[in-house]
């Protein structure tokens, strides 16, 4: 029964991948989006990354349906810190929970949190960068100094300080805090882009024609800023996933018994030498996801921004 479910999940992944692939290889007529997709498809690593992400999302979305065990239920004493078997693919943890099912559910939670937090950070970062870049002057100087200060604090230390003060965190506040500490880089990028756009002819022309600031931002600035924002968002997800895992690892993120990739590793860390499987598998899931996002981000940069070649 479970095998069937897994097979159908795999089939779904293949179908979705083929659809994606077809989109990237258009016929004669090609829109701008399709041209970008075709450029993206030129990077084999980026394509593999995209498929890996697709697989991760499909599997974790179907976690309740695919899990072999209840991720919170405890198995009998004989199955405490049990090494992997055919029944227990990734073994069990120190209280006898099935690590495989926990990793499935944990990936789901970690991916969702990372996605939401990235949206928060992108909205914030873009707004901040737009305002600083567009308004300019003393406000820009003040805003950029503030940004410098935020960038000077090691991200994890800042996250630890905030989370520790408000612990225990709900999932919503965790998303907010991760988002609130991840936007600095984005806004820097956006500001730089805005500054360079401001000097261009089209903006000057629009202004001469009496367009309002808001209209200029909407029509000329935002569309051009979108490319670096999308790229930095994609790369940002990787960072946020790792940061969330780090907080959970330190015991101030997602709290037990709900599984997140970070707290599964935390459960395994006191037993790293005696029950290595508990920390190994969720870590691999993390690395695969983060690496896929990094590769996809690189691919996107090349695809969306033809000016930058071969970075």
């Amino acid at each position, binding site marked *: 029964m479970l095998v069937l479910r897994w097979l159908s999940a795999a089939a779904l992944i293949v179908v979705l991948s083929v659809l994606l692939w077809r989109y990237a290889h258009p016929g004669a007529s090609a829109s701008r989006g399709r041209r970008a997709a075709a450029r993206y498809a030129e990077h084999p690593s980026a394509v593999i990354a995209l498929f890996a992400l697709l697989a991760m999302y499909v599997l974790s979305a179907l976690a309740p349906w695919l899990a072999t065990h209840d991720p919170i239920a*405890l198995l*009998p*004493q004989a199955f*405490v*810190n049990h090494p992997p078997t055919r029944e227990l693919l990734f073994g069990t943890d*120190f*209280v*006898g929970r099935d690590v495989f099912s926990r990793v499935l559910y944990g990936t789901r939670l970690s991916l969702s949190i990372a996605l939401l937090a990235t949206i928060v950070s992108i909205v914030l970062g873009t707004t901040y960068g737009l305002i600083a870049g567009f308004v300019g002057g003393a406000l820009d100087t003040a805003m950029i100094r503030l940004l410098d200060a935020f960038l000077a604090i090691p991200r994890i230390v800042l996250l630890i300080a905030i989370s520790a003060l408000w612990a*225990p965190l709900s999932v919503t506040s965790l998303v907010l805090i991760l988002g609130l500490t991840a936007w600095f880089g984005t806004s820097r990028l956006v500001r730089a882009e805005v500054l360079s756009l401001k000097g261009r002819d089209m903006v000057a022309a629009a202004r001469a024609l009496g367009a309002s600031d808001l209209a200029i931002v909407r029509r000329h600035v935002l569309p051009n800023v979108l490319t670096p924002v999308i790229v930095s968002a994609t790369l940002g997800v990787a960072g946020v996933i790792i940061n969330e895992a780090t907080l959970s690892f330190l*015991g101030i993120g997602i*709290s*037990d*018994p709900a599984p997140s990739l970070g707290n599964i590793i935390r*459960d395994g*860390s*006191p*037993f*790293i*030498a*005696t*029950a290595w499987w508990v920390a190994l598998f969720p870590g691999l899931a993390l690395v695969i996801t983060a690496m896929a996002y990094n590769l996809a981000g690189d691919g996107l940069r090349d695809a969306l921004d033809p000016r930058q070649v071969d970075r």
Partner: protein
Amino acid sequence: MPYFPDNDMRISRRLIALCALALGACSHDGTASGAKHPTTLVFTQPTDVDNLVPALSTSEVGAQVDAMLFEKLAEINDSMNVIGDAGARPSLADSWTWAPDSLSIAFHLDPKAHWSDGVPVRAPDVIYSFRVNKSKIVGSSLIPLLADVDSVTARDSVTPVIWFRARSLEQFFNAATQVRVLPAHLMASTADSALQSTPYGRSPVGSGPYKFVRWVSGSSIELVADSTFHRGRPKIDRLIWSISTNPDAALLRLLSGEANYLDKLRKQDVDQIVKHPELKVVSYPSMLAFYVLFNERGRKGKGQNPIFGDREVRRALSMAVDRRGAVTTVYDAKTPVLLGPYTSNLATFDPNMIQLPYSPDSAAKLLASRGWVLGKDSVRRKGDSSLEFSMLVPGSSSQRQQMAVMLQDMFKRVGARMTIEHVDFPTQQARKTAHDYDAAFDGMSLDPTPSGIRQEWSSAAAKAEGQSNTGHYMNPAFDAVVDSAVATMDPKAAIAMYRRSYAIIANDAPAIWLYEAAALAGMSVNVHPAAMRGDMWWVNLAQWTISDDAPKSGSVAVAASAH
């Protein structure tokens, strides 16, 4: 600017490999040669110490180090008899005399006793130490025990006299065998409020069998034997507490010979250690009691708990649990079932204490008689509320988690649904103090004094905010019996009264008494511990020995197989 042609890179790679080899080789020589002279006992501990002044230290490691650096006037025997001075042996004082009315005791200090800087220990040191430990500003944990001590005076320079406000069976124990004597000549000039941050707390001078050598914060604390110690030089030359936050890293230190003592073994530690012939597992008496505590107050301390406020429900849930079976499954048949809020090594222990029987049928009947009727989903209901509650389970012990799962199953059979909340230890403490819980898997290290029961279970302890009776168990009859047990001067009567109080509390079932934990330590086979006491295994460290015959693992393996 340098450039690195590929050629050059190859050389350096080889160099790195050589370095790694050299570094690796060094480790082997280091541990093998250094272990012979002098003898060193290395404890691996998970946390650093906060302070080394005995009145200020709050950590267990701090207590261990302090026990080797500082002395009490007297020490109780390994039998842990705390009544009067019958079980006491000399320590800093070589003798003592009671006043005829028992309201004062004069101690005669060993004239040879001296601080490690050479200054002799005298009566002013004792006077100072008692004042500091009674000071509200310093906040020593001994304050409640010293409530009956009125003052300390000096009859002459080697004869401090402790004056008591009231007599009790435990007055000697509470005063003479609790306070560690501090050097007044080094500390008295510091204001009490500034004691916490004096440099002295990080490089103490004591009168004990060992002298302070160094404390590398976050890494290790080292003591060395004082050959001029007034009761004879300790056997082991050096004691080192080394810190390793990760439990598996601590285990590996023991396995690799970087440490030769590891306390509080987990199950997987034992599994690993028994594979190593140069190591052994030693079990020692402990006073750790584990039980499921019911919160009789409502959530957040409002009103009464709709489930556990009812004594009959608590009794029914207790009867639903096969304690012997659960303890045997999770631990073994030798691990004793806890009979009440006391362990089997207390003098007041009564092995024939009447217990609530294990009987799911009677439990079900009792619940039904209190209005909890079985619903369709096989969970009992009474009006709108259902028999559902959560239990906090702290820490990373897999046995405790497992026990919790077994309890969950047993409750289910009588129609109660329990969910397990796995929390870390500080969270559990905070939620207990805030009464923000239904039930909690709790553990407690007991005092050797039977009167300790008053601090945990009396009504007074429940009423005072932030007090230890977080389950809010209150029974005036229990309070009365305990109070008279504490007040009486007749040892036999006291034991009888304590036993009566045990019967009362067991009958009220404020908790499901589960088991007495076996304490296990792993150590090298050539470490020979002296008697390890249940409340403080380290108390006789000065008498421990290390035989220098078997520092290498290989030779021990041969010797072990020859047996």
